[in-house]
């Protein structure tokens, strides 16, 4: 049997897994095709006219400015705080590590609500950049902090011994090694900004995403909306390409596991005071303001906090999130298996496609599904099935990453051994494979579950009428500026997100060595 395995799976022959993986990838890429078809529906010249109108230029300026300002600010803040926490003799580093990840538990649109309800004049680029920076900086802090902690200081020591000063050592030795982590974080920030709707609607800073929603509200399924979606897709492609180019320019390898030398923490000296003050200010803005604001509005709401509507929304949210988690895990499994076991060109395409689709803004995916349902497959519009499909497309990579990591621990040889000892395919799957990959399946499930709990944009467009989730219930109240009524929904979402954030925080503070 082992001898024949190579020939049985000739490259090019589609196994059942590959077939399923291809189907999953096709479904994921469907929105792209739909948007293109919808944009060109009224003819290419009409689409071009819609694309070249001044409003698109205005939205392009706003969107680009926001991406540039917030991504830069997040990188500066994220790298700076990570360096302070991991590489300096900062007092209470353990606690700062937790405080700097904690903003992840507060959805960005809840953060915006917290600020705007206290300071209604907070609008425009400055307000949008402030809030998105506060909410998204952990995306940079997390990977950079993890990397800094794992760095072998031997390289730095060599650089120092060869005559470089501390600053030049940092720039020439540490920065290049940290680069992939910074780029990864920056990419995540930029993609989130392109997809962001809630924050920008509350702050009243129009970007492509908010304009697409406006078009949908005003005129439903239009060429204008599809063309704006295409423009947004173009920006997404630019961001992804930029990341790819920057990433592939240089690589750094460290051969052999070896023993890492932990660096000597830098002494802060007279910078100690300002560093602690700066961190305190940042944490107060990122966590203190939402906490104060929510407490304030909860207090104002009084006895109406636990309304029947809130309970109904909680149930719908939990139900949708459970279903989305289960379906996404099942859809991700064949793709993950294929990618992990059968590297090849087809596999690479499939993997890229699923990742690409999920980096599309939620509004684009939702609008594409609306168009699809209304124009071509009638009865699906405003059914739970369509909403769940959107969740699967949006969140499948979260599940895939976890499953792939787990599959790495289940080598083929182990399964072959089980078979040779007499276990059938089912027995092998149940008794050998499943126990090994179960943690991966579950963590993927949890990631999708939590993402679904706080998803706003796609849910606004696709939720079956009559179904209110925590996010849309929150949105309905805060959109009509009924801040007290919105507070309990916000708190419920934070409580649901807290366990996962806690998990990330504790993992983050573990010693990697």
């Amino acid at each position: 049997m082992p001898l024949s395995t190579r020939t049985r799976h000739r490259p090019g022959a589609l196994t059942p897994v590959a077939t399923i993986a291809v189907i999953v990838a096709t479904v994921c890429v469907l929105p792209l095709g739909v948007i293109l078809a919808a944009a060109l529906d009224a003819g290419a010249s009409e689409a071009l006219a819609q694309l070249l109108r001044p409003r698109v230029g205005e939205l392009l300026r706003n969107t680009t400015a926001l991406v540039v300002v917030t991504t830069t600010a997040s990188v500066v803040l994220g790298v700076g705080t990570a360096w302070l926490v991991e590489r300096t003799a900062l007092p209470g580093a353990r606690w700062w590590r937790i405080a700097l990840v904690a903003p992840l538990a507060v959805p960005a649109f809840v953060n915006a609500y917290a600020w705007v309800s206290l300071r209604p004049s907070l609008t425009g680029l400055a307000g949008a950049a402030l809030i998105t920076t506060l909410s998204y900086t952990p995306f940079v802090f997390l990977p950079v902090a993890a990397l800094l902690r794992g760095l072998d200081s031997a390289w730095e020591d060599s650089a120092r011994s060869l005559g470089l000063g501390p600053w030049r050592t940092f720039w020439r030795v540490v920065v290049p090694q940290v680069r992939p982590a910074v780029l990864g974080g920056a990419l995540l920030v930029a993609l989130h900004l392109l997809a962001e709707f809630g924050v920008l609607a509350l702050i009243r800073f129009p970007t492509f995403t908010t304009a697409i929603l406006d078009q949908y509200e005003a005129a439903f399924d239009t060429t204008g909306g599809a063309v704006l979606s295409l423009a947004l897709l173009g920006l997404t492609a630019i961001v992804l390409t930029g990341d790819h180019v920057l990433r592939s320019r240089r690589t750094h390898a460290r051969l052999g596991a070896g023993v890492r030398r932990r660096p000597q923490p830098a002494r802060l000296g007279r910078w100690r005071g300002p560093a602690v003050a700066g961190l305190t200010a940042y944490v107060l803005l990122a966590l203190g303001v939402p906490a104060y604001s929510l407490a304030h509005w909860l207090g104002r709401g009084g006895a109406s906090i636990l309304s029947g509507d809130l309970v109904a929304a909680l149930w719908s949210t939990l139900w949708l999130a459970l279903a989305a988690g289960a379906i996404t895990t099942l859809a991700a499994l064949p793709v993950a298996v294929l990618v992990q076991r059968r590297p090849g060109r087809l596999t690479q395409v499939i993997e890229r496609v699923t990742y690409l689709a999920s980096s599309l803004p939620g509004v684009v995916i939702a609008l594409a599904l609306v168009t699809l349902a209304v124009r071509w497959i009638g009865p699906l519009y405003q059914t739970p099935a369509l909403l769940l499909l959107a969740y699967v497309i949006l969140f499948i990579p979260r599940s895939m990453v976890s499953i792939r990591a787990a599959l790495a621990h289940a080598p083929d040889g182990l399964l072959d051994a089980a078979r040779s000892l007499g276990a059938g395919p089912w027995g092998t799957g149940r008794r050998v494979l499943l126990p090994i990959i179960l943690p991966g399946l579950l963590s993927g499930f949890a990631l999708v579950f939590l993402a679904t709990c706080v998803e706003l944009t796609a849910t606004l467009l696709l939720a079956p009428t009559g179904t209110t989730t925590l996010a849309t219930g929150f949105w309905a109240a805060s959109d009509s500026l009924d801040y007290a009524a919105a507070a309990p929904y916000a708190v419920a979402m934070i409580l649901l997100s807290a366990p996962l954030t806690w998990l990330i925080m504790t993992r983050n503070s573990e010693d990697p060595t």
Partner: protein
Amino acid sequence: MKLTRLIPAFAVAAALTLTACGSGSDEATPELDPTKLTIYSAQHKNLVDAWVKGFEADTGIKVQVRQGKDASMGNQLVAEGAKTPADVFLTENSPAITVVQDAGLLAPVDKATLDQVAPAYRPSSGEWVGIAARSTVLIYNPSKITEAELPGSMLDLAKPEWKGRWGGAPTGADFQAIVSGMLEATGEAETKAWLQGLKDNAKIYQNNIATMKAVNAGEVPVGIMYHYYWYRDQALTKESSANTKLHYFKGEDVGAFVSVSGGGVLKASDRGADAQKFLGWITGPKGQEVLATSKSMEYAVGQGVASDPALPALDSLEAPKIDPFTLDGPKVISLMTEVGIL
């Protein structure tokens, strides 16, 4: 043994789960029940709930409501065409129902129902009927602007001296209805020029409530919105309107536009008789009484029915005389798109 050979088993499990989830969804989310009369409603939920409750108690006919927004719901009905599950469509403003009417999807409203409603609030087509009305108002903050400084006409707000000094919510169906009234009264060129003025001058808010709060907080001295948000807030806590007053343009100004909320019966409905009964009930004395006492603060349009006593009489507002049937919502959307508001 290759791991990949186990996958068909997983696929079967996946398919089973999907099916299970699919059928489970029917129980967990309120799907439409074919035995009930189905209302697609873009009107305020509180009002429609009160109507439904009264109608069900009176007639024994069970009703279910799908809540939505004017433009998206009107266009959804057009997209659904003959396959729509809807029996009745209720809007906040007439342009959305005109879109459905122009697609040939509405059945003529019973004559008895039409006759219950004052002639100014039903379209000449007779394919739908007014169910409520709301007036355009200028809200202002007396600590920021005196009454004498207020504009004489809503058209003045496009002039350069109003730059940065007024607010509105042009992305919403309410404001778009006001503009469709202007389009009808003044024509395309003037409306487009005014919209350009809006783009240059106005602070854009997401809805009427946000506009009202902004004026109340003194962010802008004046704003354009509908009257009932102000009266509702005044009747409750005054939290969002205590520092403000209303100004009615009157004199058949475009800013005195009264918007008619519409109700119609879908041709595709297989419960046409019940649907007509529902429309007759909400526009009849009982339905209009529910409206007048609901504190929704919208105007009643039934013949001889008085609105909430806090409101100035509807016929004292000197609204421009416009047939609501002719309002062209899609044109307004495309003008707003051209100018770059949408």
